[in-house]
């Protein structure tokens, strides 16, 4: 199977997830070996996704954890009845 560039682009996401059928993956791979444009598109997409997944992109607001845990502590103290709010449910699934 010989693929054109625009068809290879349709497979980029599946290729990155290693979710393509074997023969499609082989064809994409063969195309990539000979096409610098598609290789650059694939490399840039993969690179951008690695950057996107980095925890430095979106950070917690200053003081978020302190406020969260303080509120949880308050509610746990005042509302332990919340824990027994579903008496019909089993204590623990496992």
């Amino acid at each position: 199977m010989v693929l054109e560039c625009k068809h290879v682009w349709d497979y980029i996401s599946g290729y990155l997830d290693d979710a393509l059928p074997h023969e499609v993956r082989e064809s994409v791979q063969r195309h990539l070996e000979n096409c610098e444009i598609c290789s650059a598109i694939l490399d840039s997409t993969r690179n951008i996704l690695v950057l996107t997944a980095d925890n430095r992109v979106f950070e917690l607001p200053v003081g978020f954890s302190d406020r969260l845990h303080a509120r949880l502590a308050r509610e746990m103290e005042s509302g332990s009845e919340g824990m027994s709010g579903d008496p019909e449910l089993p204590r623990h699934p496992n």
Partner: protein
Amino acid sequence: MTKADIQTPMRDEAQMIAAILAGNTELYHELIRPYELAVYRMALSYMKNESDAEDVAQEAFLKAFRKLSAFRGESKFSTWLISITLNEARRRLRHQGTLRFESLDEPPGEAGHVSPAILRDWREIPSEALERNEVRELLQTAINHLSPIYRQVLLLRDVDQLNIEETATVLEISLASVKVRLHRARIMLQKELAPKLKSLNPERRWFQWS
């Protein structure tokens, strides 16, 4: 290996949850610490302002605590937590009358074809580049500019590292929709970001990052 695995070696969450339900509620603080950012990030993707997102995140953690006995262990705790966060965000938006997108499997406009930015070469950008504000801001802006259905799939799958099935379950859409949206989201990000990242970094500046 997922990021949660790296952050939290040796954690036995099932055991922690059992201990919390048995009365050691203090442990809940420790249980949720690795997920604060993921929950906040997801809340922010719906709410669009930091203060509402923080409210939603706090509410989600509280609800998860109160409902902990209903956690069945069929999904990962993190996935369950994110589902609660999405529900809380949707509840808020409905309350504010601003929920424009429900979990429609095929909203209008989803049928178009998306093409990537054409490049002749690509030089790897190391993660250290994220120490620069302008790079972080480029990424934030590009992600925020995706329409919600694409942004959520991308965040769940590529940032929170849920698998396709988990993403489909959390968003209440089909596997096929997850795959289509994910593909488009990734290509749209590449299209938006590749030229900007490239021009931001002329070759002679690269070595500063490595």
